[in-house]
């Protein structure tokens, strides 16, 4: 089983990239949601 | 045929503008000269080495120079608010692109032909015997640079950091042109020079593909 560590490293790295990317999308999403709330509050107050 | 007569009139305008100032041509020639001289410090420019690296660095300097030279192409129109007037003056907006890309090809070709003898002297290569073939390679390569370059000049004029955006958009796209032109030029600079017809054909194909794309999508590039 030569090179098994390389195989494991490749798969770990691959899945890690997808995972981190997905997390980054959710994070950007929640920041934007907060922004929406803030802006909506601002707009209703202005009325 | 209104397309071509319109384009010819606009080309005349581009050439006149440049003839009055000659800013673009002088700065580009000096730029290429600087790059070619600086490159010579990165390796030993003996005849053999130059044959290996010369064509590549020559085309790389042309590409960098072009990505700078193409900047003002649409920016000038935007700064002077002349783009909408220009668009109203022609029936087919492709005429504007045809004129601008012909002018750009011409300017590029002119600077390149001016640079060739200097390059040959500095890098110990013989170009006299293959000069006409070399000009053909230069022409097809410059056209390949100028077609997407003119299109992207219209795109980058709309963006922030446009001086950096144009090279960023243009250079990766020009990978095939760089490869084909370098190989074709390399073939001509060898000890037994030969015209690489396959690469010339490839360059012509590249030109046709992007000219067609520009013809199809050019009008959208001029929207404001």
């Amino acid at each position, binding site marked *: 089983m030569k090179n098994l560590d390389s195989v494991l490293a490749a798969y770990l790295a691959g899945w890690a990239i997808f995972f981190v990317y997905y997390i980054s999308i959710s994070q950007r999403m929640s920041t934007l949601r907060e922004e929406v709330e803030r802006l909506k509050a601002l707009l209703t107050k202005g009325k | 045929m209104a397309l071509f007569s319109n384009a010819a009139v606009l080309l005349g305008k581009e050439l006149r503008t440049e003839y009055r100032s000659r800013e673009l041509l002088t700065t580009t020639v000096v730029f290429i000269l600087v790059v070619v001289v600086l490159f010579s410090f990165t390796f030993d420019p003996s005849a053999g080495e130059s044959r290996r690296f010369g064509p590549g660095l020559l085309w790389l300097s042309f590409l960098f120079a072009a990505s700078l030279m193409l900047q003002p192409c649409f920016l000038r129109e935007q700064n002077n608010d002349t783009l909408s007037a220009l668009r109203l003056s022609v029936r087919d907006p492709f005429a504007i692109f045809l004129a601008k890309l012909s002018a750009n090809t011409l300017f590029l070709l002119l600077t390149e032909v001016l640079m060739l003898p200097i390059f040959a002297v500095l890098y110990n290569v013989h170009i006299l015997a293959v000069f006409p073939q070399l000009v053909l390679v230069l022409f097809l390569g410059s056209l390949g640079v100028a077609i997407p370059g003119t299109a992207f000049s219209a795109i980058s004029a709309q*963006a922030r950091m446009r001086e950096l955006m144009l090279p960023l958009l243009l250079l990766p796209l020009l990978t095939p042109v760089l*490869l084909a032109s370098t190989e074709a030029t390399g073939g001509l600079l060898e000890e037994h020079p030969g015209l690489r017809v396959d690469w010339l054909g490839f360059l012509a194909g590249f030109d046709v593909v992007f000219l067609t794309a520009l013809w199809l999508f050019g009008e959208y590039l001029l929207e404001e």
Partner: protein
Amino acid sequence: MLKSTVKAIGLFVLIAITAYLAFYYAPIEKSMGVIQKIFYLHVSSALTSFLAFGICFYANLRYVFTRQQKADWLGVSAAEVGLAFIVVVLITGPIWAKPVWGIWWTWDARLTLTFVLGLLYISYLLLRSMIEEPEKRALFSALFGIFAFLDVPLVYFSIRWWRTQHPQPVILGGPGSGLEPRMRVSYLLMWGALTGLLILLLSARYRLEALRASVEDLRREAEVR
């Protein structure tokens, strides 16, 4: 929210199955040994990234002709997700190449194409961040995307042509004909799983872009007041 969690879990199960298949079900390749198992992820990611860029090209064309904001959202989502797959390709590739070829990188046609493709779509995303006005941003990035996609076959053929005239390391053909049936099943399943992942990421990124557009609208409204 619950629905997307269920989807994510389902996808995770699918990926676990494919990983099992790739590692235990598919036989160990004779000449390369166990290292060949990287290919299941590597090749499938490459195919999926091409699919993503194809979707981006479709969205770009659609935007230019219909001017629907949704097409623009799809375009930017597909480009970004495609780039994520390209990153996986470019990381798993060298990990495979180092033990087999003894070098991390070689300027082979397929590697170089992947690299140039990545650069082109990085430029696409950069261009988007450099244009303020939403409609201009959508139109001009779409036009650049169309030009960039047209360049892909030209890049590929020029490099392949160029490389055939230069010495190159021996390349073991990718998944071609004569593939062992159990290997083929593993490839297909991995590709299916990654396409599922593509759809999941794409829809998440798409929703993010829609939200961003509504934030931009709200901001403008707030500024007017």
